[in-house]
């Protein structure tokens, strides 16, 4: 297995520690007086998304992580899982609800996502920041309640429930932020 020596450390490098893939998201090179160089790294756990600090001393090495990222289309739900297909080689991958995270609520069949694969196993997926989804159900708009600051729950075609302005009706298309689950704006139907 390839490994990186401290002098190859740089931002963006993907490494593994005890079998867990991490990405170096920040690195501070520090060299005291006549002492050995220290590499103060911020490491992002590519499975959990958490960030930890770790200091390396000159001469250490970390195992490289075989992590790749590619565009994959969301196909369908299978039990508790989500099935994606690599757009290049049509290979299919199944991810758990945990791996897909909150964005899973907004996945619509055919949506292109970024799939992250470690040692041929999918470990995460990044949905587009914004998706356009149709409103499947909401309470009708009541007269005099059209101010934009009044919100009501709406159910989207993927089954997700979000808060949207009171003027939204069944059949409207909404632009939604998949990271926060926030309504952004009413949109035209996607082409």
């Amino acid at each position, binding site marked *: 297995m390839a490994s990186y020596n*401290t*002098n190859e450390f740089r931002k963006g490098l993907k490494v593994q520690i005890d079998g867990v893939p991490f990405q170096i998201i920040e*690195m*501070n*090179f*520090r*060299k*005291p*007086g*006549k*002492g*050995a*160089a*220290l590499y*103060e790294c911020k490491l992002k756990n590519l499975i959990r998304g958490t960030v930890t*600090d*770790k*200091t*390396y*001393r*000159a*001469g*250490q090495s970390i195992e490289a992580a075989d992590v790749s990222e590619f565009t994959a289309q969301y196909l369908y739900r299978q039990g508790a899982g989500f099935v994606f297909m690599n757009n290049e080689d049509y290979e299919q991958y199944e991810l758990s609800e945990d791996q897909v995270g909150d964005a899973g609520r907004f996945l619509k069949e055919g949506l292109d996502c970024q799939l992250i694969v470690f040692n041929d196993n999918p470990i995460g997926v990044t949905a587009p920041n914004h998706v356009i989804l149709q409103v499947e159900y909401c309470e009708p708009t009541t007269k005099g309640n059209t101010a934009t600051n009044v919100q009501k729950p709406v159910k989207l075609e993927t089954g997700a429930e979000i808060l949207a302005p009171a003027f939204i009706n069944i059949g409207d298309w909404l632009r939604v932020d998949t990271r926060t689950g926030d309504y952004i704006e009413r949109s035209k139907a996607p082409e």
Partner: protein
Amino acid sequence: MHQSLAHLQRRSELLAALRLFFFEHDFVEVETPLLAPEVIPELHIDPIAVEAAWLQASPELHMKRLVAAGMPAIFQITRSFRAGERGALHNPEFTIVEWYRTGDDMHAGMKLLDQLCQAILNTPVASQTTYGAAFSQHAGICPHTSSADQLATRAKELRLDIPDNMQVDDRDEWLNLLLATQVEPRLGQTAPEIVYDYPASQAALAKVERREDGIKVARRFELYASGIELANGYDELTDAAELRLRLTQVNAARQAEGRPALPLPESLLEAMQQGLPNCSGCALGFDRLAMLALGTDTIAEARAFY
């Protein structure tokens, strides 16, 4: 080129001010090889090899030969090269200001450095702190009398992130970790601060002497401003046999770490055998000086190219 032209203008003014300072103090500007067949081996500095020669990690070797040849006060503003050093305060190629004056001991060398700092950066008088006092104050432990175990315990008490490949029985490793994380960031906060009297084990090319309090110290000093190490100076070791011994130990330590030994600087050892006068020398990182003068956070912002 990605820096504002005003930064480069200021950099040029700083270079001119440095030259003026040295000329006013009767120094002669010299030039020495950047590429040479010998280096002065250091444990934690790697020179860059080019065509059976080395890009020099500092101009020390040749400048000392000029002092030994009879030049009483010399300075140089040149480039130096250190493999693998890249960060906010490092670049593998950097500009170094280095000077030597005969007849100076450590305290005279510190005074000259302080005068230079005041003249170039308009700073107040530098405070002077022994390495021992700085350590006691900021790391809460005596660097001269504590064992490697005691230093390790202190590092753990302070919850330092300890690298896996620390040489745990090496006192200097712990001292450097504590220095880097606890001491250095707190130095020179209100005025420049000169730290002196380093542990004898970190003498590098400085004289080692026993102080009145019985502690053996290296007559070495470093200048810090706003937590940044700016300069390193010595009351220069003049004993050729002692230098040969130290460099042989450096090479052994390099090899113990799995790094190559470096050829000894026989030309310098020979010159010292003939006689190197007592002198103090100092090296200053010009990119960091420019960074402080410009108020930038990285040396990259104080250079035209990075």
